[in-house]
């Protein structure tokens, strides 16, 4: 298999597509319901607020990357926290990436099993996704970048198909505005930031991108805005389609609303969208698996590194299989993920951000002496 060597470079647009594809995973299908449960009809406002806040996180990550030129996430952790603590936090990230990968895999299996292939053993569904993801990441960074760029077209096809949701939509369902309480807004914002939390992955890609930090900032903020507006679009369509009460009962509103959409060429658009969505599931899953692989970047031998990836995917498959047994197990995976997400996507990046200022002072001192 091809080598994943650190000297590989990706272009700015490839960086943008990697970012978009790793953001849009499972959440696109159920974000509307989750937001509605948290903040009611004002869910889309919470999404907007959360989107704006997450832009600051993206800028923060860019700043961290600027302060440690050429270093990836795990190197940065080492040079900030020291060897032992750095390795520990690095391992924490390894676990976090695996947990997200497990979450993506179980949700994907659950969805396909419910909507599309009820008879197919769920393990086969998992294996299909894992194999395609492994194949993608085995080619290293440039291949990932190319595959992700290639599949970006699906985003536009799916956006166009969602227009069918407007057929039965009533915009009165978006009113009244401003009924949610402050704590409900906070919950809605939290959910939004979690579903946009792939910015943590950026630290793995930014150092290998060509271009100045200014160009990277412009590209990434642009990509992030695209993702936010896509989310906003799906949330508004599904809110207007289902109304205040029904949406809480539907777990994948964007699919559900396409169930009656009849077109000349495709009878069941929901199934068609679901089939295309599996690509999103694969790319997001591959991104997190790749991130887990990077934890072993320091391991010198290529073969050993791939071995680590295989062992990681076996762990992922095993836990996902356990998770797929019943809804309770999935629930506990999601709960565990929720617990650790906060630490790894909000607190540690914040800490790194603060520490990066101190480091800059160190450097200045160093040059002055």
């Amino acid at each position: 298999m091809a080598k994943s060597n650190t000297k590989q470079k990706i272009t700015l647009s490839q960086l943008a597509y990697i970012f978009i594809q790793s953001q849009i995973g499972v959440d696109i299908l159920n974000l509307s319901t989750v937001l509605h449960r948290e903040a009611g009809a004002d869910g889309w406002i919470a999404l907007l607020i959360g989107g704006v806040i997450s832009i600051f996180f993206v800028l923060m990550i860019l700043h961290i990357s600027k302060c440690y030129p050429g270093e990836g996430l795990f190197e940065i952790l080492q040079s900030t926290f020291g060897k032992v603590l750095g390795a520990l936090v690095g391992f924490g990230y390894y676990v976090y990436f695996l947990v997200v990968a497990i979450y993506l895999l179980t949700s994907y299996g659950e969805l396909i099993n419910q909507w599309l292939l009820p008879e197919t053993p769920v393990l086969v569904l998992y294996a299909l996704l894992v194999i395609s993801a492994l194949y993608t990441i085995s080619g290293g960074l440039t291949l990932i970048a190319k595959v992700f760029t290639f599949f970006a077209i699906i985003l536009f096809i799916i956006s166009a198909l969602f227009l069918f949701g407007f057929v039965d939509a009533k915009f009165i369902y978006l009113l009244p505005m401003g009924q949610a309480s402050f704590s409900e807004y906070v919950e809605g914002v939290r959910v939004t930031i979690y579903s946009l939390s792939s910015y943590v992955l950026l630290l793995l890609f930014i150092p290998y991108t060509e271009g100045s930090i200014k160009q990277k900032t412009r590209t990434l903020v642009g990509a992030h805005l695209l993702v936010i507006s896509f989310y906003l679009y799906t949330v508004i369509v599904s809110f207007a389609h289902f109304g205040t009460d029904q949406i809480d009962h539907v777990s994948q509103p964007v699919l559900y609303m396409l169930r009656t959409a009849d077109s000349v060429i495709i009878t069941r658009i929901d199934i068609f969208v679901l089939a295309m969505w599996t690509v999103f599931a694969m790319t997001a899953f591959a991104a997190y698996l790749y991130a887990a692989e990077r934890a072993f970047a320091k391991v010198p031998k290529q073969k050993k590194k791939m071995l680590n990836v295989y062992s990681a995917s076996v762990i992922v498959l095993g836990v996902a299989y356990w998770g797929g047994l019943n809804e309770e197990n999935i629930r506990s995976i999601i709960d565990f993920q929720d617990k650790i997400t906060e630490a790894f996507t909000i607190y540690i990046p914040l800490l790194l951000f603060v520490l990066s200022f101190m480091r800059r002072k160190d450097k200045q001192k160093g040059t002055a002496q």
Partner: protein
Amino acid sequence: MKKLTMILLCCILLLSGCWDAREFKEVKLGITAAYDLTDDGVYKNTILIPNVQNSSQGPGKESTQFLTSTGKTSSQSRSNIDRRLSSTYSPAQLDVVLLGSNLAKQDIYPYLDAYYRDPRMHLDCVPVVVKGSAEQALKVVPESEVRPSEYIEGIIESEVETTNSVEVSLQSIGSELYEEGEDFVLPLMEVGDAGKTVSYEGLALFHKSSYTGKDIDYDHTTLFLLMKKVKGKVARISTKLYEGKKPEPDNYTTINIEDFSSSVKSKPDKQNKVRTDIKLELTVMIQEYPQDHLSLSDLPEVKKNLEQALTDQANETIRTIQEANSDVFGIGRSMYGHYPSYWEKLDWEKDFKEIKIVPHITVNIRSRGIFR
């Protein structure tokens, strides 16, 4: 390694089958289903399964098969039907669900739950209320029809085209079924001609998820639907313009609606709690004026009488709606949307009957036809 991968990939591509294949020959598709509640409260399900026989010339003749079974829930009675079929019965392609009025007067949701829950079901299925027994309506098979299984669906479709019925499906009533301050209508049918035909009777008014027992008459549906901003391909209204002219048809006229615009606006009101104004502007062509001699100078009077007659008709419809307590215009939801704090003070269950709904209808006669 590379070779092995290639071989494995080829195997995956070439040797894969499908676990979830469901062959057409193994299922029997029901096209129409009828749900009834018998007098002792037992749920009864009847389905129509078409079988097309091959023939050497032309399209095969269609024969229909009816199966009836009872059960506690719709899934149970479905499996009771299945017991009597050589292949599996699948309601995944149902086009029409007939609900007997006894059953519709109960909460209809429990009987439809399976449709919403199972992703294999097609939600594009038209629910219809039948006065009396739905089973009886289902079993009407006129001999003149080439495809008896599409008889009822055909009636509904043509009524939608002539603006007498709304285009409904299980999906489109889904949000209204749940939403507070918003109700819906379903097509209403009845068996006529001593069991030889089924006829479309108007729109059945629902409140929450049960049939109120009150309907909008067939004569009033077009105007009602126009107020609800729905128009099919053609819209025609016959109305009484004058009193006491002889012969009787002279009192009437028929207009063809070419264009329309409609708006429903509600606001809080001191006297009646809520005041709703329904503005409807119609651009019409006089299609029938049996009195003859419709000169240009008569038009203003005709227009005035027409507006009066239509307003009376609209008022009558609104009265029925309020008596039925069926908020089909979604006034409650619109009040909640625009005046959320005022809405808190309302008891919509009671207040809807008391609110004031005023229709404002203006008619613009564009043409009198080619014979004056």
